[in-house]
């Protein structure tokens, strides 16, 4: 497996862990805030460096330079690949923005130590593909909000605990029951695989907040600090669990059933957002609607749909992350915001108003913003599979668009607010919001690199499942014109997959059962294996993109 030039991954995980320990020693809250910003900045620099370094390798996966964890545990615990590469800087950016936009007046309510701890766990989760370790990290990630609810805010944790226990329990049970050969035979899964897969899927759906098991999310937003709740949901670790644990084992029909379930959640949450009067719950529903749309795309199992979903994952993380942070900044000024009345904040906080609108519009895929192309791809992918799903996605996007402007008007307009204290955005808030603006508009006006990268990741993920990367919905003559380049590209991808097989070989050594099963699968390819160059790509070891070695 190719190696990064620096141990970026280890740094990006160890730095926040050390920072969390340091926070426990610092008593001065203001100093703690400044240190936390510095650590988050350094972590983001590492995560970004990791991403850039990985891109320079032109490989599908890579591990750290002088991998310390691999030396300690004798396996590649942390590996970066095309799926996780942009998620790491996104996650670290969200943490940095959150810490940066935390007002001095809120430092006593917001725990920097636990925030850094959760950042380390999240980055480790996104860097991990090994089954049990990933499950352990996902379980560990639920700890930080629980501690805040229980110890710091003395809130009732029952709703959160019940759902998260169920999540962890189902995940562990499902993974424990899963047969070794499950990954090689996704489309011909047996009864045990299906049952185990159903448990894992249910767990991932609970973590993603799929209806009717979404109430923990609204409860968390109501009881926890906005920052903690936002950071717990915005990077979408539930979707990551689906990509790593469910996608390689679930047959297409099961995935598409999950897509329908996600779609129902998406429409329901969009409608609930319109009927909601509390700003936090409103944000929660809005986020739920968008994250469910991402799941819809992920489970369509088509190149365009998956590319769209991966793009929307990033754009929603960025835009709704910014939207949430803007709302958090508003809360810091006026307390909890009710949407049943007008607040008229525009005159006092025009910068926050602009950001609120910009991030909100980006989340619904408004032209010129980062979400536009991703949403188009997602809808196109959905139309390609089931036109009705595509149209429902469009309707959901329309409802979300109405909801965004509804919230904007309620918060910033409708009355003339007279205040005696300044509400203007502070420098740190401005910097945070400006960075988000640049990314949202930059990604929107120059989307090709992002889309290409996500398409590459999508085709690799599909190749690992053995799904044909075919064209859809085009004229036959047009298709013929591009047959040659398409096959050539597929062959190149397949060759690259095999060229990067050092890590694969080590995985095979560690898991003889898996390698034996895959050998037999390769000898008699599944009926769905496609006949161009990519059919060979479906054979490689699960340690390639997305697969989880057991």
């Amino acid at each position: 497996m190719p190696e990064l030039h620096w141990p970026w991954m280890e740094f990006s995980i160890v730095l926040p862990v050390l920072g969390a320990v340091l926070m426990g020693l610092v008593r001065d809250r203001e100093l703690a805030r400044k240190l936390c910003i510095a650590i988050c900045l350094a972590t983001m620099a590492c995560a970004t460096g990791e991403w850039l370094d990985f891109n320079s390798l032109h490989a599908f996966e890579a591990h750290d330079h002088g991998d310390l964890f691999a030396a300690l545990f004798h396996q590649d615990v942390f590996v970066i690949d095309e799926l996780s590469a942009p998620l790491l800087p996104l996650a670290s950016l969200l943490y940095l923005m959150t810490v940066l936009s935390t007002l001095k007046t809120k430092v006593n309510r917001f725990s920097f130590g636990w925030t850094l701890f959760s950042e380390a766990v999240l980055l480790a989760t996104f860097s991990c593909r090994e089954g049990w370790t990933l499950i352990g990290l996902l379980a560990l990630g639920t700890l930080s909000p629980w501690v805040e609810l229980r110890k710091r805010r003395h809130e009732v944790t029952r709703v959160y605990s019940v759902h998260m226990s169920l999540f962890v329990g189902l995940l562990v049970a499902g993974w424990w029951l899963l047969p070794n050969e499950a990954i090689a035979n996704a489309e011909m899964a047996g009864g045990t695989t299906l049952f185990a897969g159903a448990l894992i899927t249910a767990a991932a759906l609970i973590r993603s907040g799929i209806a009717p098991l979404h109430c923990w999310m609204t409860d968390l937003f109501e009881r926890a600090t906005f920052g903690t709740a936002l950071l717990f949901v915005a990077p979408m670790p539930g979707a990551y669990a689906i990509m790593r644990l469910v996608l390689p084992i679930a047959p297409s029909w099961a995935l598409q059933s999950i897509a329908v379930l996600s779609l129902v959640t998406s429409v329901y949450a969009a409608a609930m957002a319109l009927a909601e009067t509390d700003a936090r719950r409103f944000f929660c529903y809005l986020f739920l609607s968008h994250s469910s749309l991402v799941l819809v795309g992920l489970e369509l199992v088509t190149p365009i749909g998956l590319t769209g979903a991966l793009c929307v994952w990033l754009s929603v993380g960025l835009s709704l992350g910014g939207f949430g942070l803007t709302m958090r900044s508003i809360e810091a000024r006026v307390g909890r915001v009710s949407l049943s009345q007008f607040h008229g904040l525009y005159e006092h906080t025009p910068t926050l108003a602009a950001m609120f609108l910009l991030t909100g519009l980006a989340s619904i895929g408004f032209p010129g913003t980062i979400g536009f192309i991703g949403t188009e791809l997602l809808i196109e992918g959905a139309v390609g599979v089931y036109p009705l799903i595509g149209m429902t996605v469009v309707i959901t996007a329309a409802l979300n668009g109405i909801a965004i402007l509804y919230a904007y008007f309620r918060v910033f307009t409708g009355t003339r607010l007279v205040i005696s204290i300044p509400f203007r955005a502070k420098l740190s808030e401005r910097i945070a919001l400006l960075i988000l603006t640049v990314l949202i508009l930059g990604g929107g006006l120059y989307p090709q690199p992002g889309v290409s990268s996500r398409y590459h990741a999508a085709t690799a993920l599909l190749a690992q499942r053995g799904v044909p990367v075919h064209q859809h919905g085009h004229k036959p003559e047009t298709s013929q014109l591009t047959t040659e380049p398409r096959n050539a590209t597929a062959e190149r991808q397949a060759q690259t997959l095999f060229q990067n097989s050092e890590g694969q070989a080590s995985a095979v050594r560690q898991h003889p059962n898996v390698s034996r099963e895959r050998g037999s699968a390769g000898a008699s390819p599944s009926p769905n294996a496609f006949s161009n160059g990519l059919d060979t790509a479906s054979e490689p070891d699960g340690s390639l993109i997305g697969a989880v070695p057991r």
Partner: protein
Amino acid sequence: MTLDAAFSFLGMAVVFSPAILLVVLGGAALLGIGISERSTARFTHAAVTFGLLSALSVLGLMLTYDRRHVPIEFGNWVLIEEQHFHFHLKFVFDRLSVPFAILSFVLCGTIGSFTKVYLHREPGYRRFFLFYAVFLLGMVVSSLAGTIETLFFGWELVGLSSALLVAFFHERQVPVRNGHRVWSVYRVADAAFLIAALTLHHLTGAGDFDGLMGSGAWPEGTATIDANYALIVGLLLLVAAAGKSGMVPFSGWLPRAMEGPTPSSAVFYGALSVHLGAYLLLRVSPLLETSLPLSLAVIALGLVSAVFGAAATRVQTDVKTALAFASLTQVGIIVVEIGCGLRYIALIHMIGHALMRTLQLLRAPSLLQDYHRLEDAIGQNLPRQATALDRSISENDRRWLFRFCLERGFLDSMLDNFVIHPFLLVFGWCRRMELSWTRFLAGGKSPLPDYTTPHAAVLEDHP
């Protein structure tokens, strides 16, 4: 410089001039840089003038060299070659787009100059010009779009700026509520547009207008898609056009849009935005010829809208609303003309109507003064004679008709009663159920949001 290079340079100048204006005004707003009123007006003036001159130059070159169809390629904005997914940025200068782009520049330029004085020292002066820049860019992109995706891009910009301008006086609730209603209707229209674009892309493999118009220049092109497909795509586009132009059953937003400042009402809802739906139908008019049922649907919608607009405008109690419905009447007639295949007449009608309506709306605040002058001149009140229609309808029917027209066809009430209220009832019930369930899980302890007055603590962050 070759002719193609000249076209390319001028074409880009037409598109980039409003884009640069938006970057300047939007960037300043985001960075918190205060641009003076005078500078704002000058930037706007320069951008509009440059864009207009460029558009006129393109027209001049086209006439001189007898070029009827000048595509300006910006290349693929996004391309996934293997999947044949591309977002193609292409602008087309032809007999339809050039007059409409010039019209947009002329009217926006006029309104820009008018607003410079009209909104002088208003707190929202810069905000107005920012939305104005978004609108102008949207109009220019929509006018010149060579692909359906590009048209959608501009279409959305127009929708957003229109809604925000309706809510321009945002310290009052009514304009804000109206702005939101306009936005909601636009979102429905946009959804129909997007579905149409995707259906077209799905059926034909391209979002290019060439699929709709064949290879011929407008208006001689012939659609190359199947009649059934044409009907599906065409009906979706008809819904989108009806929403954008305020045609029946979406007419409820038209009077609401008049809450905005007069200049924006004049240029956006009276002249340009309201014609964008008709422009869309004109752009895809070869599609109408492919399917007779589609043409009949267009004619029927136009007729109903025209009759409704003509009736409603007669009983409105404020001049801007009356003018809005008068616009609807003309838009309805234009749509009928499009349905009948009278494309040049529709285009000329559209341009003439837009210019006249802008003038009328700009004069609207002085209407009473104009009336008084008129009455002073003739020495009596303006005479009103009963028409043949008045005499042929019974008193009861006239009262009912009056009520129907005064209530604007009860379209808004129907939307409230049959869509919004049931929607809120259903999801309000869901909300209560969810809260009960969460409270039950939490052992009866629900967090009570603290909707307090501003935190004095925030002061601590400021010196």
